[in-house]
């Protein structure tokens, strides 16, 4: 290996590491607030990328049907509850948020041809299609069982993951998609070439991480999420309901996932099931941080990205094995050094 290749691999590793770091942060957030190990995190990456690709190819992305179906289901559940509690005034709002808004979006997609729109609008549309799926899935699937054990929530997550993979195949087909690069700029450093898209991914990830930091440190809603993670009962007594915290954390996780997918889709071809492996690598980073520490999780995820990149050069057949083997010494070390109270 010469310096040029080392730099190239490092650049690759940092790029994927930045994405893994975002996903690791989302996983830590969701786990801390709701105790859910969010295996479907990766599906949001794939859905984000493939929805954008669909829009650019002027196809109506299948995610709109999922959005409409989930919205209708939630409207039925919530509307039924409102009827039983005789709180009729809530019904128009429920219908507006869960049915009218997705319908409006669908109508807009049919009316205008999304392929002709500028890229930022396309990205915004893709996010509008994918991000609401996060809180909707929380509302329908996780909230009714919010009090069960971590293991049961994990099993639910596996079910959601498998369902979303199946839906992904149904919506987007088996072929992969790659979106055009956001920027064609590239820089040359001596012998190494630095791609504009790579810089964009790293910068966008950093900006997002800083934005998350400000959200959690400076805004009352961010503090409310941290408070829920620290002390659930205390938070409830302040009026921060588990539902609010859950919906908020799933919205953030879905947004991070979809945004990551949109960022990497010009770099790598995304298939309907690509998200799982990407999400799993973010998960390795999150585990390094003990599913609790945000900075360690992010650093761990960058380490995963670098390790993956260099191992693909020396032992490409074993690159996944090497990455996932990383988790063994980490788990061993954590189980030897930390004493944690057993959860019931």
């Amino acid at each position, binding site marked *: 290996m010469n310096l040029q290749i080392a730099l190239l691999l490092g650049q690759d590793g940092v790029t994927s590491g930045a994405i893994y770091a975002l996903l690791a942060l989302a996983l830590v957030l969701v786990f801390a607030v709701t105790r859910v190990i969010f295996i479907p995190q990766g599906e949001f990456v794939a859905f984000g990328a493939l929805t954008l690709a669909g829009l650019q190819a002027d196809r109506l992305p299948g995610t709109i049907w999922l959005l409409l179906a989930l919205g209708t289901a939630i409207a039925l559940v919530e509307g039924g509850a409102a009827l039983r509690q005789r709180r009729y005034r809530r019904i128009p709002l429920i219908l507006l948020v869960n049915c009218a808004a997705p319908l409006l979006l669908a109508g807009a997609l049919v009316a205008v041809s999304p392929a002709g729109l500028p890229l930022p609008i396309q990205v915004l549309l893709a996010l509008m299609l994918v991000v609401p799926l996060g809180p909707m899935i929380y509302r329908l699937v996780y909230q009714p069982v919010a009090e069960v054990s971590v293991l049961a929530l994990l099993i639910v997550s596996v079910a959601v993951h498998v369902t979303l993979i199946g839906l992904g195949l149904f919506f987007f087909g088996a072929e992969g998609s790659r979106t055009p690069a956001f920027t064609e700029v590239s820089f040359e450093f001596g012998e190494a070439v630095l791609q504009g898209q790579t810089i964009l991914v790293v910068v966008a990830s950093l900006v997002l991480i800083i934005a998350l930091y400000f959200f959690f440190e400076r805004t009352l809603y961010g503090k409310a999420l941290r*408070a829920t993670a620290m002390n659930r009962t205390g938070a409830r007594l302040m009026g921060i*309901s588990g539902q609010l915290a859950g919906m908020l954390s799933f919205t953030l996780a879905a947004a991070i996932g979809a945004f990551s997918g949109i960022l990497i889709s010009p770099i790598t071809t995304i298939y309907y099931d690509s998200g799982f492996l990407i999400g799993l690598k973010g998960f390795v980073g999150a585990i390094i941080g003990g599913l609790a520490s945000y900075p360690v999780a992010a650093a761990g995820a960058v380490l995963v990205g670098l390790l993956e990149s260099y191992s693909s050069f020396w032992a490409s057949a074993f690159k996944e094995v090497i990455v996932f083997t990383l988790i063994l010494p980490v788990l061993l070390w954590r189980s030897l050094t930390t004493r944690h109270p057993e959860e019931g």
Partner: protein
Amino acid sequence: MSSLAVDGERPVVLEVRDLSVSYGKVQALHGIALKVHRGEIVTVIGPNGAGKTTLLSALIGLLPASGEILYLGEYQGAGRSVEQLVRLGMTLVPEKRELFSEMSVEDNLLLGAFDRYRAGHRDQLETMDQVFDIFPRLMERREQLAGTLSGGERQMLAMGRALMAKPRLLLLDEPSLGLAPLIIREIFRTIAQLRKTGVAILLVEQNARAALQIADYGYVLETGELSLAGPSSALATDPRVIASYLGLGGRR
């Protein structure tokens, strides 16, 4: 909101009739009836395990209960939730304080106003200044993490955080628990002063002497049932209360 029932001169904030709570087949509370007026301190005293914490948890909706709970003139049915009651101005300071220990005192206080903030009120900084007036110690400690506070300061923070919600009914669960006598006196003096703000206070205490000193009205809870009730001055001189809860020192 319907007009509040007026009983004597002051409006009734909370009225409970025939309240029962069960943990599975074990009945923890049975046929509880009590009333709290605006600007009044009502105390429920009783020994360990009598069901005092259960009573407050049931009132605020953390536990399911049967019977009638009339809050601000409206029935709170089985569908009542903590979040709804918090929105209606009921606030619990729990026995375990339940602070956000890895956050600063200031952030803990701000979160006390979370529901008001969510409902569109943006007056949390002024409210925080009022809380600092009541508990100057919290002002000194505002940057400190809640987990590093002393026991007395934690209780002050828990109460300050509850006051940030500008409650109409404050439920206090054993504020004296684990505190030194001097601190208890300070906390109880503060509770007595809160009465002036018009908030109704339901104070659950094992420390009967301290509670009866500041309360207007008192109930005695024993093994899940109210055994005695009356103005606290009368309770404090009742021979049964003296024998069980006050000891000889309780005689004036």
